[in-house]
């Protein structure tokens, strides 16, 4: 097992590395093709806006190469926060933008009457146990104003309630995405990362 945290200029890559270090899992931060190719697991971070993240990804990473790793070789990949959001077909933050389209759905402003950003610790209701093994209700740290709206319920593994129930853990075959920050979510976050890294 070897992990590559994809370093495309968005997201706090060092926090993810620190969390993996604490778990005792070796990881590298890189955008180098060879290193991505040699890794068994990939993590796609991301903060800021949808458009900013997808533009930076296109600028720094050869998408054909990445899609070959993810869609053809089917390497497990975990998108975090905006890294998860850009896996959708489209995003509507500062205009309409095309995403990677790896998990059918779109990203739009979180439709809630409560305060935004949605920031802090919230419980996740698990609908499928693909990436979190516990039956207990885990809590994770969120900080975002946009939500992933999955097209197919089969791609949703977990939801959270904030004025409404919305999708926060998504998966499509080897592709996983979480709206929250597992690297900043202590026990429950580390458990999730550990489970992801144990996926074959």
């Amino acid at each position: 097992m070897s992990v590559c945290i994809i370093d495309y200029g968005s997201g706090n890559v060092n926090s993810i590395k620190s969390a993996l270090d604490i778990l005792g899992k070796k990881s590298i931060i890189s955008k180098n093709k060879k290193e991505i190719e040699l890794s068994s697991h990939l993590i796609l971070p991301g903060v800021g806006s949808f458009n900013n993240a997808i533009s930076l990804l296109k600028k720094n990473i050869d998408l054909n190469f990445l899609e070959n790793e993810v869609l053809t070789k089917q390497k497990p990949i975990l998108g975090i926060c905006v890294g998860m959001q850009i896996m959708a077909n489209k995003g509507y933050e500062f205009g309409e933008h095309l995403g990677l389209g790896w998990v059918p759905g779109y990203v739009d402003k979180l439709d809630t009457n409560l305060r935004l950003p949605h920031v802090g610790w919230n419980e996740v209701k698990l609908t499928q146990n693909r990436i979190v093994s516990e039956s207990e209700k885990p809590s994770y740290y969120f900080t975002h104003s946009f939500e992933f709206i999955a097209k197919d319920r089969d791609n949703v593994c977990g939801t959270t309630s904030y004025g409404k129930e919305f999708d926060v853990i998504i998966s499509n075959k080897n592709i996983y995405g979480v709206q929250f920050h597992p690297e900043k979510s202590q026990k429950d976050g580390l458990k999730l990362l550990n489970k992801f890294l144990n996926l074959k």
Partner: protein
Amino acid sequence: MLKNRIIPVILLREGVIIQSFNFKDYSRIGNPINIIRRLSKWMSDEIIYLNISKHDKKFSLGRSDLNVESSEFEKFEEIIELVSKHSLCPITFGGSINSIEKINLYLSKGADKISINSKAIEDPNFISEAANKFGSQCITVSVDYLKENGKNIVVYKGIKKTDLDLFEWCKKCEDLGCGEILVNCINNDGKKNGYDIETLKILEKKLDIPIIALGGAGSEKHFEELFNKTGVKAAAAANLFHHLEQADFKIKKYLFDRKYNIRKPEFFDINIIKNNK
């Protein structure tokens, strides 16, 4: 449901943790690394580090007997880097943030959020500039205010009264795009007599973004009072976390036992996670 947050605030002056009273008297507490290890172990919800040093020169962690990598720092960002490595919860850094470059640097060293104070007063557009570049979720505006003759006056650099009204200023910060507001009542600083409930109640109705209350927490009951009497969902405190043993755990347990919407208080054991396949 979103949990209420309990947030320890660490005040650093020339690299050493200090305790503050009325923004005037400071006493030295100790080394920040040990505190972060402790807070992380206790499963803190989030931590805020405020650098209130008078100058930007040398930072010393004060004690070299605590098994830290180094105890002399040239720059504040070196402390950020070290602190980030030891933490598993979100960390906000603030203090003398006056440029986009500095925010970029602090984020690259591991900060999750940035707190802006004086620069926002000098140049309010800096808030929108920062929020546009890094996202609203990344930018907290920190506001110090003084209660005087029925008014809530915004205070600049902890000492100078401005002509800004607290409510109007906070609303403006929200409109300019900040993601959270940290409000600190100077009158209550270090007094341990509870939060400024009256003001927070009004502020909460005026803002649509999350509010973090600071100033006055001296016991578990003050957190309870805040969550009971206001809609504020984030309670910060500084001095309390240095003087009450296992403060974070005890406060959470007190609230959790009374059915408040708080994360379950527990200690952190890495081995349980590692063995959990």
